[in-house]
């Protein structure tokens, strides 16, 4: 078999495979969830338009240059056994100057709009109404979301109003992440120790897919999220609903689940940020939780990294996804997640951190009840809220501070949650002892407990708040 003869017709045919790559691009499906085409905001629209502009220039250059190459190969290939030498051209200065200048002109045509758009997209237009500030804090491997001034905290699903500019101001608690919602805007890295800002606007309502784009460790692939853009009125309703109390638990599973949650989950996950003080304190609480572990010199590096803050679960049932945008929020998926988080998201920290997993104490019944509880966590309907009387006495204010800051670890009875139960605390020592234990938890540690309490309460609370807290504690 003469291979050369067999291959000869294939040569030119195969070279035409090369243009197939750009053809694939043109035949793209704009509807795909993370497609950078079919965008719906001015930032992403402009970026896509600029890409298309560069793309067609590139296609023209591609056709001309690859065409010249293929033409030369076909036209000037050696035929038969012709051994004579072709013309010995060494160069052509005029030609070489021309093909230096033409690329310069093409690149200027690309550079001018590029630089203009870079400056246009720095920040947001000031003539299009107020900008909504949203704070994003990236964690391995989930997203903490806060609406400053609104007393609303949530996680992994960001709601924004359609037609309003939103400025995401972004921090990282651990490593570098990158915030990316392809349909709305290109990405921005989030560097620990610094703030990054990224402004965007959604032109249409939608449930937009987002994903961390900077490699951030074991579960990087599963650090996803959603942005839900809704009409401004619906967005305001949502903000208000996040400040309303939860509905009363209906099923017995949920009521039992609540108890399991309080003992096993509430140290890290809060469900009470519908209360303004708790919402305002959520960041400090999470930071404190993290600091406690990170600064614990007795822990090995391997353990320290596993001990971190966890997503807020207030009104969790109103969300549509689970595990940082991984799967739909259904009873079945939620049970699977609680029963074996590693099966859904290998590397997640809950499996290593939470006592029930380490001790293996979680029964299938517990899992069902926890899921039932979480799926009943939703706000009461607007207007039906029984208005809880505002904390107007020192005792009431102290109770509210306790609920927001302490109840995750301390029960008001005798039982141990994470720290000691506090019933009858006033019998255990003078007021000065209680005050010292709040301001400097290491001063006296109850036997059999390690000092895991955040050390920053002395500076976090005002003197009045600590006084009120003590009034409340003495009433127990």
């Amino acid at each position, binding site marked *: 078999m003469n291979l050369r003869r067999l291959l000869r017709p294939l040569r030119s045919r195969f070279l035409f495979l090369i243009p197939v790559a750009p053809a694939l691009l043109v035949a793209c499906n704009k509807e795909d969830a993370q497609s950078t085409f079919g965008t719906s905001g001015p930032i992403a629209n402009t970026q896509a338009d600029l890409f298309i502009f560069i793309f067609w220039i590139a296609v023209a250059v591609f056709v001309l240059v690859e065409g010249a190459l293929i033409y030369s190969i076909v036209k*000037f290939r050696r035929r038969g056994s012709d051994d004579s030498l072709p013309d010995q051209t060494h160069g052509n200065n005029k030609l070489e100057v021309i093909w230096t200048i033409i690329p310069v002109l093409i690149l200027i045509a690309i550079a001018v709009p590029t630089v203009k758009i870079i400056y246009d997209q720095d920040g947001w237009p000031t003539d299009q109404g107020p900008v909504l500030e949203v704070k994003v804090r990236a964690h391995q491997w989930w997203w903490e979301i806060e609406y400053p001034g609104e007393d609303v905290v949530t996680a992994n699903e960001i709601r924004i109003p359609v037609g309003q500019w939103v400025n995401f101001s972004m921090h990282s608690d651990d490593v570098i992440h*990158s915030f990316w919602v392809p349909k709305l805007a290109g990405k921005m890295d989030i560097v620990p120790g610094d703030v990054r800002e990224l402004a965007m606007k959604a032109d249409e309502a939608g449930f937009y897919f987002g994903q961390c784009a900077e490699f951030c460790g074991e579960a990087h692939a599963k650090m996803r999220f959603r942005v839900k853009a809704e009409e401004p009125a619906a967005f305001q309703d949502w903000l208000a609903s996040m400040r309303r109390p939860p509905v009363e638990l209906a099923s017995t599973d949920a009521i039992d689940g609540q108890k399991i949650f309080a003992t096993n989950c509430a140290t890290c996950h809060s469900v009470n940020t519908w209360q303004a003080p708790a919402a305002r304190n959520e960041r400090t609480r999470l930071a404190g939780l993290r600091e406690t572990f990170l600064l614990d010199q007795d822990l090995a590096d*391997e353990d320290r990294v596993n001990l971190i803050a966890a997503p807020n679960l207030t009104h969790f049932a109103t969300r549509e996804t689970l595990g940082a945008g991984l799967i739909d929020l259904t009873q079945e998926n939620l049970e699977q997640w609680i029963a074996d988080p590693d099966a859904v998201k290998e590397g997640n920290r809950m499996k290593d951190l939470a006592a029930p997993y380490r001790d293996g104490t979680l029964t299938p019944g517990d899992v069902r009840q926890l899921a039932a509880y979480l799926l009943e966590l939703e706000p009461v309907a607007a207007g039906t809220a029984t208005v809880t009387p505002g904390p107007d006495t020192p005792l009431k204010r102290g109770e509210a501070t306790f609920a927001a800051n302490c109840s995750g670890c301390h029960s008001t009875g005798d039982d141990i949650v994470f720290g000691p139960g506090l019933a009858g605390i006033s019998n255990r020592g003078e007021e000065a002892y209680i005050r010292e234990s709040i301001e400097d938890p290491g001063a006296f540690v109850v036997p059999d407990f390690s000092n895991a309490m955040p050390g920053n309460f002395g500076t976090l609370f005002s003197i009045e708040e600590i006084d009120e807290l003590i009034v409340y504690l003495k009433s127990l």
Partner: protein
Amino acid sequence: MTTIAFPTLISRPTSYTGLWSWIGTVDHKRIGTLYGVTAFLYFLVGGVEALILRAQLAQAESDLISPELFNELFTMHGTTMVFLVVMPMSAAFFNWMIPLMIGARDVAFPRLNAFSYWTFLFGSIFLNLSFFLGGAPDAGWFGYANLTGNTYSPGDGVTFWALGLTTLGVASLAAAFNFVVTILNMRAPGMGLMKMPVFVWMSLVTSILIALAMPIIAVALIQLALDRVWDTNFFNPAAGGDPVLWQHLFWLFGHPEVYILILPAMGIVSETLPVFSKKPLFGYPAVVLAGAIIGFMGWFVWSHHMFTVGLGPAANAAFAVSTMLIAVPTGVKIFNWIATTWGGKLQLNTSMLFSLGFIAMFIIGGLSGVSHASPPTDAQQQDTYYIVAHFHYVLFGGAIFGLFAGGYYWWPKMTGKKLGEALGQWHFWVMLVGFNLTFGPMHWLGLNGMPRRIATYADGMGWEMSNAIASAGSMLIAFGVLLFIINIIRTISSTQESEDDPWDARTLEWSIPSPPPAYNFARIPQVKSLDDFWYTKHPDLLHDERGEEIEVGEPVENDTHGGGSIHLPGMSYYPFITSLGVTIGVAGFMDILVEVPGTNIQFPWLSAVGIVIGLWGLMGWTFEPVSEEGGH
């Protein structure tokens, strides 16, 4: 001649065959072979790593391998292909061809050359030992801080990475200095800089880039190692360190590194295209100048790897413009190559096909590069498969294709036998199709929102088909490599010998027997013009198209070089011993420190052992005579 007596514990190797002769060799050709064989073996290792990655990504929601292993494999795939394949394979060609192309009998520092290879080998083995000693590095070939800190990468993998790359950097630096000095000082009489083959020019630019870029990454790697071993805080934001500092240092090295990877391949096709077109290189001065400008401008574009870090509009605009500018000299090279083929008589053998494939693929990589030289579009493309597609078109379709072109071209020079042409053509076409099937769809995957470095992806994102095609394509590439291996085996076992100058080539290496004798040139050639050897063979062409006369040189008689006999450096074990000492010395900073009794000083005892071995090697190296008396 008197020699200083040094109590060497070992005598130098005497036999020119067998294992010990390889360990003691200082012959640039044998060292080139060692580099080539080692780099090819690592090409197989890095390739298998890639195949496993592609198998995992072939379908959505796959759990063929754990995310942990996935992260280790993509880290080691990138690290291996850059530092253990393309760089040493280029070094193999540098070693083999630079002395032959400039009419020299060896490199300037033959023992330093051996030291470079052994340090590379030991460093690469140390790096890969991590797979068996608690887990390979898993923070990416780019090792972004602060993920590489102890808190977030608690195992030893990243320490292996930092120390392994530091060792490899020592090897690269030694080699780079050696080649720069060789090229500048050891050219045959009359070979002015502008009469050097383009491959030698690109080797010179590459070596200068290595000499300047490696110290930068060495600083960053040592800082990282200190952060990890002695708890310093260069990159730890919690203690005021700056993770972005790492990115600047890494890419200030990393972008010149891209040209370190591609310029040798550009040099190779600048040799093969004229030979197989039967024409001189079109616009030799422009091609040389473009290569030098690329080498220079390569220092001013590093932040285009960081457009989404948030450096601000001024930095992004400046680096966008500088990045677009560097496309101009690159374009000039492509046009000159095409013009070289234009009007020629193209001999479409395997080497030529790989050279033409290089141009065709590099054009695609260059064009996609321009699209993310623009920060607003890069904001969507950064850290997606679009980037993966881009740099594979440049570094696989580019660098690797170019190296294959060089392999087929110089194989008869190095071994005296031609690689099989029929199998070679199959190799090329299978590779070309496999390559485009693998990396073509990745453009689309990136634009469709698939991030890089994800161990798995959800169903229903519209990524399934493209990933399946890419994985199938990777199997085809593997098949192409298999054909190449079969070709090598068949060629080695064949008895058919090649002529000394089978391609009617243009440069000096073809003026001597194939394979060359140990001393290369019986008589040192004299050079009067570019492609001097070609004109010696074609005296009818001594007038160029402008009617100017071209001069050719006569070989220099040996007695003008002293003594009338050929001096070759003697073999030596000391480079090997010194390399062993350096590698053990660096490896000793792993987590095996011992506390000095009565203090809290952590003592790297293994490093001390390495330093002793290294000093012994250096002493022997210093006092050993260059060659035994009478051993000419």
